[in-house]
């Protein structure tokens, strides 16, 4: 690898120091949640490199403005269709677009926010850089794919996106792995800067499969004056996921629409902390998160609205719902609010519950067998958030995957609901 510019090297060095100084963390949440990495054998993992080439992928959309695929430690495929934009490995961008990268790289992602953020700052390889220059309307989505192919992989990932003034773009990030036996790590950093007046629609579709993939990531989105970002984090699989997801209205008139969903099964463990951070006034927020838990899975969603002192006239709300489909699943969904200024409109709400037996009875009374009734009810429950994606390709992908997962969980769901019916 050629020597990187000084600012990249400085960040790597500082990151390495912080990484080495810190113990492997345990996160305690709301008094009784613990996310621990005790089961992860970090020393057994290593970055794995692959030859160039396009692996087989199902990404929902047929056309793209660009496609970039990182497999293990390196980018194996880049296809740029819309030549007005820049999409390339970050390793390459730090050389070829040094000034632009220097301005934004790590701006919202300090290297010292914990061991894995530090590790990512130190060890990232390959990486993705996306730049949409100003006044460009990109028709098809830019697709970014992170693949882990085999156990023993450590993937240290960094995506940097800069969307120019008054540009419009759709970005789809996919996180995929086959159902392998063994452990792997994805430690990711994602930062997106939506410059004034831009319109960005970004989704992260995580489906690490049945292998033991640990995903420890931080994603941050900064929205500048009068820009609008539609943000959709989707979690449909992974052994353990611990993510910090922050979306920031940084300047007046900016606007966020934030939609999240998750479906956990087997022994999966999901720990999400999202913050809708309003740093400037006259900004709007609209956040909905929904999740379903099956098996013996654990899922904790904590969603914070934070309105800072210099941010009056904010209008925002957050709601979060969680549905338990198994007696052994445990979850919580906690909305919270910190308001440091007068004259704002902010509300939040959350529910955690089971599927209502009366609804199942109603569906069955119309001839639907119990398993199908449950499937339709759960799909209907997700439909509200799926519709917010406003992207037929992605909607179809999500619907299909949820239907598959429900099919897999059928026996468990039947048993659970049967037990409840008998207890009633």
């Amino acid at each position, binding site marked *: 690898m050629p020597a990187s510019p000084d600012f990249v090297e400085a960040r790597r060095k500082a990151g390495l120091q912080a990484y080495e100084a810190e113990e492997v963390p345990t996160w305690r949440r709301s008094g009784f949640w613990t996310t621990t990495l005790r089961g992860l054998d970090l020393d057994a993992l290593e970055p794995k490199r692959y030859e160039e080439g396009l692996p087989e992928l199902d990404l929902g959309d047929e056309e793209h403005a660009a496609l970039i695929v990182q497999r293990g430690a390196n980018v194996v495929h880049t296809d740029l269709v819309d030549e007005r934009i820049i999409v390339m490995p970050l390793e390459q961008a730090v050389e070829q677009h040094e000034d632009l990268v220097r301005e934004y790289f790590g701006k919202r992602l300090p290297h010292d926010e914990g061991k894995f953020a530090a590790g990512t700052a130190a060890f990232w390889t390959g990486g993705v850089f996306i730049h949409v220059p100003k006044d460009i309307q990109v028709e098809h989505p830019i697709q970014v794919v992170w693949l882990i192919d085999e156990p023993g992989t450590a993937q240290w990932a960094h995506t940097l996106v800069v969307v120019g003034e008054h540009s419009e773009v759709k970005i789809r990030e996919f996180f995929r792995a086959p159902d392998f036996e063994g452990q792997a790590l994805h430690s990711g950093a994602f930062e997106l800067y939506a410059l004034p007046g831009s319109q960005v629609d970004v989704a992260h579709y995580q489906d690490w499969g049945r292998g033991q993939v640990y995903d420890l990531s931080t994603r941050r989105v900064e929205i500048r004056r009068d820009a609008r970002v539609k943000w959709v984090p989707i979690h449909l699989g992974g052994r353990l996921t611990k993510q910090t997801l922050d979306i920031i209205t940084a300047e007046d008139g900016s606007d966020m629409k934030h939609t999240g969903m998750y479906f956990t099964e087997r022994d999966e463990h999901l720990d999400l902390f999202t913050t809708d951070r309003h740093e400037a006034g006259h900004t709007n927020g609209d956040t909905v998160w929904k999740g379903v838990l099956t098996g013996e899975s654990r899922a904790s969603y904590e969603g914070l609205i934070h309105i800072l002192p210099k941010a009056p006239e904010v209008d925002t709300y957050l709601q979060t719902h969680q549905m338990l489909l198994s007696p052994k699943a445990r979850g919580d969904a906690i909305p919270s609010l910190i308001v440091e200024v007068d004259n704002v409109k902010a509300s939040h709400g959350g529910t955690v519950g089971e599927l209502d037996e009366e609804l199942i009875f109603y569906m069955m009374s119309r001839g*639907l067998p119990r398993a199908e009734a449950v499937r339709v009810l759960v799909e209907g*429950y997700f439909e509200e958030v799926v519709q917010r994606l406003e992207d037929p390709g992605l909607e179809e992908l999500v619907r299909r995957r949820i239907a598959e997962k429900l099919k897999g969980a059928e026996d468990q769901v039947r048993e659970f609901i049967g037990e409840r019916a008998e207890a009633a």
Partner: protein
Amino acid sequence: MTLEIQNLHVRTEDREILHGVDLTVNRGETHALMGPNGSGKSTLANTLMGNPTYEVTEGRILLDGEDLTEADPDERARAGLFLAFQYPATIPGVSVANFLRMAVNAGREEPIKVKEFGQLLRKNVELLKISDDFTKRYLNEGFSGGEKKRAEILQLAMLQPAFAVLDETDSGLDIDALRIVSDGVNAMRGDERGFLIITHYTRILNYVRPEFVHIMLDGRIAREGGAELADELEAKGYEFVREEVAGRAG
């Protein structure tokens, strides 16, 4: 070709509600089941459909000779039984049209053709004077009381069951809506179908004239007769039945 309810005893967790109900509805007949609040009418309706909240401790439910007492609700539906709910469930994320398609297909070997379904839906939407966007809305989400009842009757019209139980479909409807719903029910009456109309009031019976009227009190059928019994009830109220029953017992 009958729906037979034989000596039905039903309880919930804390008490017995039905103490031996006998009632037979033949295809081609329309029966009214009347009674004051708490008499057990809705318990009977829910038990017929197999609501797991209610437990049958004695007696049987037969549909065309087939014993459905222990059957799951979906088996009962596929056997030809339908319940229009007093309080229909709200199903978020599932449109009326989608729900109807699933329900129609549940009773068929081969899924209904798109065109055929569309025609059937259009016909029934017109019959019940429902606006076009109604079928695109999520089932019962944000529906008024009247809209919910209409959605129930739309399902009835789409599914064309052998026996339909209408549980207080009339309550909460204004006169116009009651007339539309009644017209819809009347259009479906015929030799191949039986109705059991459960109601607290005689109002709907002016539009849908039953051949038989049963009055339920305290979990038992207290009196039976023809349509004139409803008129008598209208004039005298439930108390007269209660007194009569008490008189008989004494």
